[in-house]
């Protein structure tokens, strides 16, 4: 018995010793994971290089830019929005444009009795400076399913809410900083070029420019002679006081604050929404033409198709609709 145990022990001891020696030799060789490590080392050194170059960029003063004032006027963009299938997509691509504009403050006003989760979470992730408001449109003024889009003015209450907030917030602050600003009404389905925002930044009272794809035409625009707006080039009801589209003008914040009663009249006849706001603020002669004397189109009144949901509706009837937990 004893002999057997001893042999077993000796055998086991030898095996483990050999194993240990083998392992120690392996460690000495620095395993083949060095390949993996080397790639990472390379990546890290490249990253360090990039970091270094970024730091250099920071130190270098920008030679081409003339010294700018410390804070250019803030552009307050008021956007009414409402829940529908394409809402998240529209807000996404609008935010991608706005993200390029410095000193921009986005005032997003939902047509809703409360703030929706979709918009709240979207704004937090957007990276923009924003204010999230909401006000529901009263049912009589609301467009019903199947109504053509031009039947009732859309977004009037929401824009007024944006104005109200601005007046309330600016009224509290006495500093000149907040007074230096421009207010622009941007719908969530239009298309804006980056140049547009720089054009409107210097607005003293109300500035205007052409808008593409609106009024049943390629573009609508104010006609400028000798630096002043003399009339409007539009094919639809040109006798309105201001035959402009919502996207075709911007108002200085100072003017908005100086006229606390100026607001959008939701009951105004079709096409007169803009005029209902601008009438008390400014005359045609006082308008400031932008976009190269109103000869360039920097904003387009695009509209997004309502996506076809026939199959979705059919599935929903059978109780097999897509997962509502997946946000679209």
């Amino acid at each position, binding site marked *: 018995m004893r002999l057997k145990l001893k042999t077993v*022990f000796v055998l086991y*001891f030898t095996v*483990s010793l050999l194993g*240990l020696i083998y*392992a120690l030799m392996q460690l000495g060789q620095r*395993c083949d994971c060095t390949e993996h*490590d080397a790639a*990472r080392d390379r*990546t*890290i050194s*490249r*990253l*360090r*290089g*990039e*970091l270094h*170059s*970024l*730091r250099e*960029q*920071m130190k270098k003063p920008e030679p081409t830019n003339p010294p700018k004032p410390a804070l250019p006027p803030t552009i307050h963009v008021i956007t009414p929005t409402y829940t529908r*299938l394409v809402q*998240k997509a*529209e807000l996404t*691509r609008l935010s*991608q444009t706005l993200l*390029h504009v*410095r*000193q921009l403050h986005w005032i997003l006003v939902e047509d809703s009795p409360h703030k929706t989760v979709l918009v709240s979470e979207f704004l*937090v992730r957007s*990276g923009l*400076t*924003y*204010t999230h*408001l909401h006000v529901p449109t009263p049912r009589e003024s609301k467009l019903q399913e199947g109504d053509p889009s031009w039947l009732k003015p859309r977004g009037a209450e929401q824009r007024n809410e944006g104005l109200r907030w601005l007046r309330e917030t600016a009224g509290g602050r006495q500093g000149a900083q907040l007074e230096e600003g421009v207010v622009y009404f941007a719908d969530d389905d239009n*298309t*804006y070029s*980056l140049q547009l925002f720089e054009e409107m930044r210097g607005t003293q009272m109300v500035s205007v420019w*052409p808008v*593409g*794809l609106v009024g*049943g*035409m*390629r*573009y609508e625009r104010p006609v400028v002679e000798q630096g002043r707006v003399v009339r409007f080039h539009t*094919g639809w009801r040109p006798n309105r006081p201001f035959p402009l589209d919502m996207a075709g003008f911007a108002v200085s914040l100072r003017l908005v604050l100086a006229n606390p009663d100026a607001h959008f009249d939701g009951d105004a006849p079709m096409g007169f929404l803009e005029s209902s706001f601008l009438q008390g603020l400014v005359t045609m002669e006082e308008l400031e033409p932008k976009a190269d004397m109103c000869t*360039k*189109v920097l904003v*387009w009144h*695009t509209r*997004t*198709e309502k*996506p*076809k*949901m026939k*199959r*979705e509706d059919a599935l929903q009837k059978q109780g097999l609709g*897509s997962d509502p937990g*997946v946000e*679209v």
Partner: protein
Amino acid sequence: MPKRRDVLAIVLIVLPWTLLITVWHQSAIAPLLTIRKACYHLVKELFIIPGTLAVRRHQLADDRGNGRRDTGQGSDSKEYCSPDKDIVEVVRTEYVYTRPPPWSDVLPTIHVITPTYSRPVQKAELTRLANTFLHVPNLHWILVEDSQRRTPLVTQLLHETGLNYTHLNVETPRNYKLRGDVRDPRIPRGTMQRNLALRWLRETFSVNSTQPGIVYFADDDNTYSLELFEEMRSTRKVSVWPVAFVGGLRYESPKVNAAGKVYGWKTVFDPHRPFAIDMAGFAVNLRLILFKPQAYFKLRGVKGGYQESSLLRELVTLNDLEPKAANCTKILVWHTRTEKPVLVNEGKKGFTDPNVEI
């Protein structure tokens, strides 16, 4: 005493093994730890630097008074430094710039192929698409016009964006039998343009090139989130994800099983297609495109909805597909369509100055 001897024996047996295990473990872990630490530091710094470069952001209080938003940089670096992912991805949209972000030597290039054609909303579509692309690092835009010649509108637009681009053009042959500007209906729209871009890629990059790249087909009227581009950057062969507003549904998506493999398609319209996916729902690694130089979109005789399959079946099998967007549960791209603008007031002769570009 036999008891003591036994104990001694056991100790002598166990000791070498414990020594072995501890030493081995230590030596394997240590280098990994140092790399991870270095990685975290670098990721943090890369995020912090751009923040100081940019205009300072602050959130004006809304009526609830939410206060300052936290950028949460710590959690991001962990995500990026995990050992099975490539170190450092992006470059979030925390900064403001009108130029594209600086070119990185580390990130694979995303080659975005966009076919386009002249119509009133073209400039608007390309403008907002460019505004999106200006946020994406290492993006190369291949814009292919459906025209006989490269138009000045597109040439000028591309030049002004500052993006890294290639401007190509090929005209889809018109159907002269029908009156008006009608293209050959047998060739689906955009096919020749996409194929031209694929050919350009194959002529420009050699198979042996080590420059990593991803190819994505982006139509000019869709909407893309910035997260999508970062998801596709890690494509090894072909990656897929859900697309909203296609096939008459809220979204179509690949079916992914528990093992993370694609086994089918969640669509109503012909789910038995080899690849029941929209053009915007997949991306291909450039290496695969170069490796299979015969793979193109089929020009003629393609049934509606089979265009994507005509290319993908020459590149991959279902098993090789990589699901992205949280295993195909998040929507990162929307198949939006822009309404055709009503131009009734232009009349027969045109009311507006045709020299003003829209």
